[in-house]
């Protein structure tokens, strides 16, 4: 029997599995698909808006309402968890300070606060007086260089200063004859130094003078220093701007974390859903893996449930608006979605705050605060109280609650 089964391989599940394995625990990590990292920016948000733009995320965590998952973990523990993850991944993948947000340009030219980012993105920090040259690749459809430059040029930097930005394009197929290449196709091509050099030469020819050349985030899938090579060849700082899925920076984080988890001896089971559980009284004894050829019980002493939120199907809304958590049937903060969906698209939607209540240890509780299963912990998007996409808090919640769950299981030992 394993010490723990972790369900879900998003940022929360991977973090929990790694933290448990580092503490010497035997772990099975089970997941249907890879989690949300492939669709993410490849950065670690802690708190971006509350509701105004946040400059010091840990400080801002202190003033969140008590029901917010960050408040339940506490600013110090949130910072500690994020720093631990950054140290695990190392400065080739994540840099920055959890106490201070950086403001980075997005793929539509807006300005987005985040806490940790990849080193290839950092030169893009939006500060007053900076000049951007945004260079697109004709073959890549999801990097509208003109829109990005146009929006940056008409924006004011968060420090109040003005910005200059212009756009340029290169025509460089990654593979001959391919009509609709994904960013990953280019990133794989950049793993070859010769292609990256050809790319840099083409960019240098059109970029013009600028403080920073902003490029689609395709600078290498496996080779993490492509951005340095390109910057040296161009002779100007470069920054990667994350793109819509498939997200190369997100895939880098996923690949690195999964490799660490597997190297640490974690059993990895992918492709089957967890559909239910067995218990002895309130104690969960196994979860049921719906494998090909029939159900298989996965037994363990403790369980970390990190299935994501609505967007992952971890919280289900039926056609009549009924809200349920389908695996454990956990009590949720609301059972009817109808009054929680607002008519204004960009407005706050309380539905997204619906989830599982937890005690201070991260165990699901009912409305009265009683723990439902003493050996079941939840981590990440399933926890109630955060509208993660609006606040830009999802990564921080995932990491902090995953570390909390793991440390509860190991008794805080590392």
């Amino acid at each position, binding site marked *: 029997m394993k010490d723990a089964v972790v369900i879900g391989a998003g940022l929360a599940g991977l973090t929990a599995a790694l933290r448990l394995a580092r503490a010497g625990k035997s772990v099975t990590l089970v997941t249907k698909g890879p989690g949300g990292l492939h669709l993410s920016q490849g950065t670690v948000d802690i708190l971006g808006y509350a509701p105004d733009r946040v400059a010091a995320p840990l400080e801002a965590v202190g003033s969140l309402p008590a029901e917010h998952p960050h408040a339940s973990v506490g600013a110090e523990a949130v910072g500690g968890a994020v720093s631990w993850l950054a140290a695990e991944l190392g400065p080739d993948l994540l840099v920055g300070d959890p106490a201070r947000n950086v403001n980075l340009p997005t793929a539509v030219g807006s300005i987005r606060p985040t806490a940790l980012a990849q080193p290839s993105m950092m030169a893009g920090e939006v500060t007053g007086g900076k000049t951007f040259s945004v260079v697109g690749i004709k073959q890549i459809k999801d990097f509208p260089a003109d829109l990005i430059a146009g929006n940056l040029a008409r924006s004011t930097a968060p420090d109040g200063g003005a910005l200059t930005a212009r756009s340029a394009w290169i025509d460089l197929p990654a*593979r001959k004859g391919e009509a609709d290449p994904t960013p990953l*196709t280019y990133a794989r091509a950049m793993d070859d130094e010769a292609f990256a050099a050809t790319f840099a030469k083409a960019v240098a020819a059109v970029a013009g003078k600028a403080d920073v050349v902003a490029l689609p985030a395709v600078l290498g899938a496996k080779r993490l220093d492509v951005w340095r090579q390109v910057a040296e060849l161009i002779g100007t700082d470069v920054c990667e701007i994350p793109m819509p899925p498939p997200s190369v920076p997100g895939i880098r984080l996923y690949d690195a974390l999964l490799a660490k988890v597997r190297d640490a001896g974690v059993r990895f089971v*992918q492709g089957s*859903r967890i559909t239910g559980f067995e218990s002895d009284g309130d104690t969960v004894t196994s979860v049921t893996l719906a*494998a090909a050829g029939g159900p298989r019980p996965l037994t363990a002493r403790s369980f970390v449930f990190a299935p994501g939120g609505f967007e992952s199907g971890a919280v289900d809304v039926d056609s009549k608006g009924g809200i349920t958590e389908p695996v454990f049937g956990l009590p949720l903060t609301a059972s009817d979605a109808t009054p929680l969906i607002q008519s204004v698209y960009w407005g706050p939607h309380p539905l997204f705050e619906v989830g599982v209540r937890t005690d201070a240890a991260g165990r699901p509780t009912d409305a009265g605060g009683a723990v439902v299963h003493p050996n079941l912990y939840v981590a990440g998007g399933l926890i109630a109280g955060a509208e993660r996409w609006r606040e830009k808090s999802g990564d921080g919640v995932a990491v902090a609650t995953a570390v909390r769950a793991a440390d509860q299981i190991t008794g805080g030992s590392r």
Partner: protein
Amino acid sequence: MSEKSRNERAQGLRDRLNNELQRMSLDMCVKCTICETACPVSAVNPLFSGPKFVGPQGERFRDDEPVDHSVDYCSSCGTCSVVCPQGVNVAELNSLARAVMKAEDGVPVRDRMITQTTLMGKAMTPIAPIANAVLDNKLARYAMEKVVGVHRDAPMPTARTQSLHSWLKKRPKPTKQPTRGALVYFHGCAGGYFEVEAAKKAIEVLEFIGYEVLVPEQGCCGLAEQSNGLFEQASASVRKLVKQLRTAGTDLTIISTAGSCTGMLKHEAHQILGIHDEELLDVGTRIREISEFLMELYEADELPTDFQPIEMRMPYHAPCQLKSQGIGTPAADLMRLIPGLEVLDSGATCCGIAGTYGLKKEKYETAQAVGKPLFDMVKENTDGLAACDTETCRWQIEKSSGVKTIHPIVLVHQAYGLGQATA
């Protein structure tokens, strides 16, 4: 061609593609592109526009229109369905679409030949030295490529002079009395004729830990026919196999060393061929891949683990059709119980062969490009051997890396001190 007209056959398959429950899974696709990032074929060949593009994306608009022919580049490795977070049956839909296409356009003679695995075994075993010499002959392989369309450098099985059943008849009866009851052993075509040593060792391991091993006469599961779009033939093969396996008992666990054929019985015949028989469901739920079974014993503290050490590095590749069973990589877990054995996961998606895909002259280069990271990994990390659970993948790895590649059970056999060392 059988009595059914080509049009009828195509229409029947198209109705399944258009109407069956798994088509509902199309609507679960959120276009997240995760399947496209994981597809080993589109990563190396831009002519394949990817599992989402030809599958959930294109399929919605297809209805009675012709199938996008680039689906023929899909190798049926099944990775797209494994990684899909939303539960879309991407690979299953694309397999059906390819069957429709082949029913409409006709199936090359080559594809009908290379799917006859049992026939190959039966024909080659009595003349093994000659068969092997022919398959090793450059001129013969060149002619085979020109005439049949099997690439001259593609891996071929090695014929053995004795089939598994012939060995079973001639060997001395086991002296140890079974202490744990009986199991049914499913060896697959390869275990019966080409990978006979691995099959023998699997039987000896199961007997050593206390089981009586029943080996009924058995044919092919039809997987190769299925992946070549020959659904009628594949359905007949798997139905016959199901009956054969049930002759040995209807309540015994069935143990298999044929990783992909296990997947055929567990889910593919149901999901891709659309067979909903009770008998198939019965066999599909009783069957265990051998490492999966031994790890289930281990989890229940019922597996003897007094293994003798094997001091070496062991690159291990988990085949696609084992990964698609959604049970993790039990062979890696099992081998890690052997002291001294340093099991190194390949981390590679696919070896490229995908059953018969990598044999075809027009797919050979794609298959080699798919497998290249794996071949490099094996070469860099080997102490003389590599391990993998399925036959055609072993032949592919061995041929392309030059490293002898064995079934993990061979190492378990050695670690239990049974017979001569391989490693």
